[in-house]
């Protein structure tokens, strides 16, 4: 999700009712939004529905969305609020706090490993997938959604310091994994 690209698409949608731009927007944002929703709800179909509703609203209020300064952050905030609403409404869902859930598929849902054959990238991919849930989420939000520390902090209701620390953990693990691989290469 690139903010500038999203803004361009929203402009196209608002001015020309451009169906192609709308599809691009969907293709670029949907997975991030629903993965983010899933981090709250732990319910795949609910998260999908919320992500879909958020993008539906873009088509309904084209002009309104054209004026938004930081749409990426806005979308994620809307997802978060919708999720919290669902949680507070429906206590039957019995949601678990973030760090208690270990779902292997969560962060990789809807994404495929890159086709480019790079041994190191594969190592990093597998390391990331084994990170603690919260750490993984922060790593993905920073890398894939290209969100600022501040934005992540307000979305997840945690401090910037925590994010700093969590990212450092992720990078530490990745570096260690890479060092291991390099050592093995040397031995061979």
């Amino acid at each position: 999700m690139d903010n500038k690209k999203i803004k361009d698409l929203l402009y196209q949608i608002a001015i020309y009712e451009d169906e192609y731009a709308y599809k691009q927007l969907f293709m670029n944002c949907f997975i991030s939004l629903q993965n983010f929703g899933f981090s709250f709800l732990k319910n795949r179909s609910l998260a999908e529905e919320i992500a879909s509703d958020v993008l539906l609203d873009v088509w309904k209020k084209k002009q309104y969305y054209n004026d938004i300064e930081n749409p990426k952050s806005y979308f994620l905030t809307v997802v978060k609020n919708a999720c919290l609403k669902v949680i507070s409404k429906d206590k039957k869902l019995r949601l678990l706090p973030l760090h208690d859930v270990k779902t292997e598929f969560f962060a990789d849902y809807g994404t495929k490993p890159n086709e480019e054959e790079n041994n190191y990238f594969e190592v990093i991919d597998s390391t990331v997938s084994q990170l603690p849930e919260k750490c993984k989420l922060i790593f993905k939000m920073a890398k894939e959604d290209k969100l600022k520390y501040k934005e992540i902090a307000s979305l997840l209701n945690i401090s910037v310091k925590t994010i700093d620390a969590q990212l450092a953990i992720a990078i530490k693990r990745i570096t260690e994994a890479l060092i291991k691989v390099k050592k093995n290469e040397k031995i061979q």
Partner: protein
Amino acid sequence: MEKNRYYHLLGRHLNTEILDSEKEELQAFKRSQRIDPELENIISEYWQQQPNFDQDFLNATYHIHLAKRSQNKPQQKIFDLKLIKTFFKKSIKWTSFAAVAILLFFLGRSWFSKTSYLNSKPNSSQIKKTNLGTKSHFFLNDGTEVWLNSGSTLNYPRQFNKNKREVQLVGEAYFKVSHKNNQPFYINTPNFKIKVLGTEFNVKNYEKDAWAETTLISGKIELNIIDKKDIERQFILKPKEKCILNTQSHAIMVNKIEKKVLQDKTETILENMNPIESILNDTTFVETAWLNNILSFDNQSFFDVSEHLKRWYNYDFIFENSKAKDVMMSGTFKNQSIDQVLKILEYSFGIKFEVKDKIIIVK
């Protein structure tokens, strides 16, 4: 501890949150040899990679999303509130009943208007008719340009059908059909049915003429010719081709047309009495010469020529001398009065005329 500091810095660097002072610190770590710079490069490269979304999954989801969008489901919000839900349960049934009733009413109206109104509607089609001696140039509402030669009738709808455009022609006309995908242009004449795919061409099919012609200048047309036995034959004309049909025998010829210098052969003879405006510089097709107010014949019998003149000048011909009908002639006239034309014919072919009111007697 030092290494942990490095990871923090690298994280901030990747996220472009690093401060200028911290940049120095990160560089110092790299120089210190305690860190393998290659690893940092790999991680940076990995960080720049765009996530590879599963396109099949996204496409399928987008499909569902679009279906949801087109539903425009506002009811869900109504049902969110339990009070409204129970309160309106019955009344919603009533409103839907009313909606059905209104719908039926409108359907009935439109059906009614279709059956009885449509036939009596005076403006559903328009007729453009040119009298003898006059020509007409106009546009149809789809942008098609039409030149209607004298003594011709074009019948066309005021508003074209969405699937096809159809006109009826008796006589001669030149069409510049505006191209429209999925909306072919049809021209029905007594002898041809022409399907057009955006093009310029001339159609000539006067009722009395022995020959009906279609000449294609550019584009592509499909000719359907129905003969006496109701057998339909199809021709596809290429540019610069002309299809000639004998309306009696239904013999069909397809000729290539050539640009000709329309030379007035009588010019030399009549030099002194009628200086003709030189049109030698213009090369044009005999078939479309009429567009430029040029009346042109290429080896045609005087009877055929007289039919042309009749339409062109609105005079009737009576043949007292039936031999004159078979005199073959070629020639070109431009912007000349009927008197001048008759004089030219008299000089060059020895045919004598007598003009009474609007009737020309051939002696």
